[in-house]
């Protein structure tokens, strides 16, 4: 086995450990609850109709089994894992008897699509502007842009999304402010639908990009202004290499790797931002799903969403970690 394979295997072991610890934490947090999910469910169901004691007893038995709540905590923990490995997250309560996994997978493409496009746009935009601002230090326009983006960075996602909503929803209403597509759109794949989906994603994506780009810009600018003072850059300048080429081949290339590592670190935080932004704009992803599940008291859906987000972020971080040694030979795969 080569050194790289050993590195990947070890990182994979770490991934499994992180997923295991994270999901275990989720399990134990939910089992600290004083709330009895079975009793809650029964009270919700019996609100709608008559209740005879025998039927309730049967219902209690079925629900206890469905939620995996028989036995002591340890037995429940084992049941929980054995079901999770088979991909069984139990039935949802708010949309009984649809399986939780089915509901989640309906919402997932929206979140992943929004998250990936917003992350990539802010990463490219922030790094490009940061490299330019670090290289052309005298430019006034670049200074103003940098200051603006850096100033937006500390503002919480919710507040920024809210400001955008007011600006483009009430003050200058040019963009749809809620939902992922037109209410009555027919969901066959067509050009009009794609256009509509893009239109609806502009504001949520903008909120994420505006907050995200500033930190990439600051990092890249600092890296670039350090690299610019290196001997090999001065040498290239004296040798008459064009500034575009210096920037592209000597400066940006060397500054990219720490930024890519940063990308992995920020994924967890981006996920937080996506969830919140979705809620503000009523975007049909897992963020909105999560909040609705909490309001509906949907025990298994909340548990499923939390587990899924841990797995998702851990895998994303793992992928970026194992890719970075391939991009830069200086990072040793140890």
């Amino acid at each position, binding site marked *: 086995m080569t050194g790289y394979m050993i590195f990947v295997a070890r990182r994979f072991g*770490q991934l499994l*450990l*992180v997923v295991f*610890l*994270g999901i275990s*934490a*989720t399990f134990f*947090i*939910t089992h*600290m*609850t*004083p*709330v009895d999910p079975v009793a809650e469910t029964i009270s919700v169901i019996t609100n709608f109709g008559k209740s005879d004691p025998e039927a309730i007893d049967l219902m209690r038995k079925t629900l206890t089994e469905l939620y995996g709540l028989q036995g002591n905590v340890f037995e429940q923990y084992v049941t929980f894992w054995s079901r999770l490995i088979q991909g069984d997250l139990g039935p949802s309560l708010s949309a009984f008897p649809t399986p939780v996994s089915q509901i989640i997978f309906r919402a997932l493409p929206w979140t992943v699509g929004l998250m990936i496009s917003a992350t990539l746009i802010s990463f490219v935009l922030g790094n490009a502007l940061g490299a330019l601002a670090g290289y052309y230090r005298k430019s006034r326009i670049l200074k103003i842009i940098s200051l603006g983006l850096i*100033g937006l*960075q*500390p*503002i*919480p*996602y*919710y*507040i920024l999304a*809210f*400001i955008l909503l*007011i600006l483009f929803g*009430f003050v200058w209403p040019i963009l749809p402010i809620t939902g992922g597509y037109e209410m009555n759109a027919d969901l066959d794949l067509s050009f009009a639908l794609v256009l509509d989906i893009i239109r609806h994603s502009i504001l949520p994506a903008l909120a994420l990009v505006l907050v995200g780009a500033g930190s990439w810009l600051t990092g890249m600018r*600092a890296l670039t*202004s*350090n690299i610019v003072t290196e001997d090999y850059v001065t040498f290239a300048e004296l040798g008459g290499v064009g500034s575009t080429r210096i920037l592209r081949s000597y400066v940006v290339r060397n500054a990219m790797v720490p930024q890519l590592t940063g990308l992995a*670190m920020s*994924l*967890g935080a981006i*996920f*937080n931002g996506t*969830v*919140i932004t979705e*809620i503000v704009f009523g975007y049909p992803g897992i963020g909105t799903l*999560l*909040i609705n599940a*909490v309001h509906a008291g949907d025990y298994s859906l*909340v*548990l499923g*969403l*939390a587990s899924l*987000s*841990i797995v998702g*972020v*851990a895998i994303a*971080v793992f992928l970026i970690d194992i890719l970075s040694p391939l991009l830069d030979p200086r990072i040793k795969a140890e």
Partner: protein
Amino acid sequence: MFTIVRDLIRYNIEFAIGLVILLLLIGAVVLSFFSPYPPSDIYVVPPDMPPDAEFWLGTTSRGQDTFWQLMIGLRNTLGFGIGVAFLSRILSLVVGLTAGYAGGRTDRVLMAINDSIMVIPQFPILVLFYFVLKDDMNWLMLVLILSALGWSYDARLIRSVAMSLRTRPFTTQSVYSGMSMRKILVEEHLPYVMPIVFATTMNNMIWSIGMEITLSVLGFTDVDTPTMGQMIYWANSHSALISGIWWWVAAPVGAIVILFIGLFLLSMSMNEYIDPRSRLNRMGN
């Protein structure tokens, strides 16, 4: 200490602005103790009054004076941020210094826990806590939960410094002169990482206050303690913007933006103070 602050004010405009904002906030906190109305009482003044000479920032639909609500809210929000920052600093110092100094198996175990917390998506976990605790989710509980989630990144930073401190001659000397590990960490290594701790405190406050606001706005915290997020929550639930009570929303949003910019400027200037290279850059300009 005094000379450092004086030089920072003189040569670092970000620090000076940040300091002014900080002083304004402290002023607001002091002022909040003179509030003529108890913080959670409603219908103490006529509702929906626009800003004028008597009610500087107008009144809310719940019959509260927006100005005094804002002052009390700022106090609670700041207290919240400081509480989380303080507790999570202690955690990150203990874990970071121990892991960096001890190395080996201790380091690996601590860093495995550290990394797990670092990648866990915090927002779903916080929502989960609310879902589980419901009415038991009070202000102190949220401080504890956020502190438990907010130390990992800084522990890694501190660990990296501690690892280099371990190889320095003075550490070896302390070991040979019979100092205990606890004593070495507290008396020898702690002073070296204090600047990092101060700089990360600001970042931690930005993060924790942001989380608190988001959770409050969604109604996922104790909505009876006035904070910045709680003000927006009540304004939203009374559809303040649609009914034209804009000052009810504008006051907390404006205060939050100023608060965050102040904290951010302070954290930026402190980072710069710690990193000598960027200090040289500034002098060069």
